[in-house]
């Protein structure tokens, strides 16, 4: 086995006439935080969707720890250890925070109507075991006060944190975060960064993160890939890639403060 958790090789994805990804290749090392940046519509989310199975690539291969995963259904890929969050928060709004996070344990449970109907003691025991695990994650992300709230009444920042918690509960090998800090102010961003770092440290995760906040990207990511129009325009250590003139032109713009 290589020391790459995720390898995308010449991935191509088209939507009708639009080529959203053109031969994108990337390799994410184990334990690394890898950034994915680029202008809007450059294909970042599409790449993540290709990895997680929603829009399987039409060409190219994606491997997870050496195992090919492209073509598999999203739930299969999830059970192989890929967890993700969404650009637009995708929580189960009919459930409490706790149940949402418990859903993260789904791949370890075997939902079975019969067992559910009778709820025998072994099912109860299983439930409690998972609950214990969930409580640990809740502690880690400081979600305890919101545990019994309904998810749609809590503020967006907390919702994003719940989504992160749900992903963490799946004990993933690869955690994919799609703009976890969109719509947050400085303080909330700082919290989020802290949680991501803590989680990565505690669970030894590999993280793939899409983010538009350059300060966060440079602080958090070991390496980044910059996409533009579905094509790679730069790749490498965060600060270097972002300083690339093509990236500045297409994505960053000239610095606001000259100073």
């Amino acid at each position, binding site marked *: 086995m290589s020391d790459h958790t995720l390898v995308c090789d010449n991935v191509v994805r088209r939507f009708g006439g639009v080529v959203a990804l053109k031969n994108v290749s990337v390799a994410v090392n184990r334990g690394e935080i890898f950034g994915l940046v680029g202008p809007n519509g450059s294909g970042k989310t599409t790449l993540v969707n290709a990895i*997680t*199975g*929603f829009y399987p690539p039409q060409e190219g291969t994606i491997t997870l720890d050496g195992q090919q995963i492209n073509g598999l*259904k*999203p*739930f299969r890929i*999830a*059970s192989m250890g890929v*967890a*993700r969050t*969404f650009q637009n928060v*995708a*929580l*189960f*709004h*009919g*459930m409490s925070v706790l*149940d949402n996070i*418990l*859903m*993260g*344990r*789904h*791949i370890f*449970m*075997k*939902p*079975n*109507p019969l*067992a*559910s*109907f*009778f*709820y025998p003691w072994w*099912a*109860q025991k299983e*439930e*409690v075991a998972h*609950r*214990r695990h969930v409580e640990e994650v809740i502690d880690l992300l400081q979600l305890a006060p919101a545990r019994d*709230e*309904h998810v749609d*009444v809590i503020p967006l920042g907390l919702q994003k944190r719940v989504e992160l918690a*749900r*992903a963490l509960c*799946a004990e993933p090998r690869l955690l994919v975060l799609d703009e976890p800090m969109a719509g947050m102010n400085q303080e909330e961003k700082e919290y989020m960064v802290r949680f991501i770092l803590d989680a990565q440290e505690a669970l030894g995760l590999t993280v793939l993160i899409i983010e538009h906040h350059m300060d966060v990207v440079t602080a958090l990511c070991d390496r980044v890939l910059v996409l533009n129009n579905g094509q790679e325009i730069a790749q490498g250590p965060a600060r270097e890639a972002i300083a690339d003139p093509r990236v500045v032109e297409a994505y960053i713009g000239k610095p606001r403060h000259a100073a």
Partner: protein
Amino acid sequence: MFYRLSGTYHTSYQADRKLWKIPTDRWLVIGLLVLALLAPLYVSPLYLGSYVLPWVIWSAAALSLTLLMGLAGQLHFGFAAVMAIGAYASIHLVRAGVPFELALLLSGLISAVIGAIFGGAALRVKGLYLVMATLAMQYLVDWVVVNVPAISGGAHATLRTPAVSFLFFPIESLSARYWLALGWAVLLTVFFMNVKRTSFGRALVAIRDKDFAAAVIGVDPFRTKLMAFFTSSFMGGVTGAILAFCFYRAVTPEQFGFNVSIQLVAMVLVGGLGSVIGSWLGAGFVLLAPIFLTNLVSGLAASGWVPVSQNFLSHLPLMIYGAMIIGFLLLEPLGLAKIYDNIRKYFLVWPFRHARS
């Protein structure tokens, strides 16, 4: 007042997931159950046979449907057809000599399989399209039932239920039929509540709320939806059989027509989507409210208080029924369950005015 919240703490995760966390609730449920069991002793046969018994059975049907519509979010406008399959299957099985207990189970399975096939066919779509697809299923099943004499029993299309016994008790007297129906409805109720607190139930809700988000944490949407259709159709099929054997004691295709499907959906909605108590309340309300209101108006008409024509009077139940559906959707979209909940909350926090959340 009645409820005592203070002093009830949960010291284990298990206790936190109990069905009835508050002792008062527990006692209430036990009390109701005893009352229900003893109903044949103190309810007149008229009321038992034409109000209580159908209410119990339709509650079971509403529970079956709300598993699919309320928890899994899969709209189904052809559930009467599922029940028809169960009813016809059970009668033919019993006639063929299969013991009643087994026939119930088998008819449930047959409904489940057919229901899941139709469900599976429609799984790519949701919302309005699912409504239409299930509606088409209703028509197809209706057609097959009417046009295949082997199923409907020929031109007159009425099949009588043979005499049967359940676990050696003959299901003949009104009380026996009532108890069997009650037993099934209670069983379904407990099932349903268990489902809600286990991973299967959560997976259903997840599929309903955000199917792609469910997929990304490892829920197989297709399988889960199929399972929902299967389970719900199983429950509906057995309920159909119970309806045939315990209530109608004869089946005709009209008993399971499109309007019955609508009525079931109305029960589920008026009760409150996905709610146990709502299924009971909704079934009772939709079934009985038009009857009582019409009786009231015809009583008034007979006494000459409100001069209305026979024609108008006869159309009144329809009007009431339609107005009731509209009224609930406009005034309390969350249904009777929500009203119940508000009342309960009121007592929970009494003497304070507002609940914490």
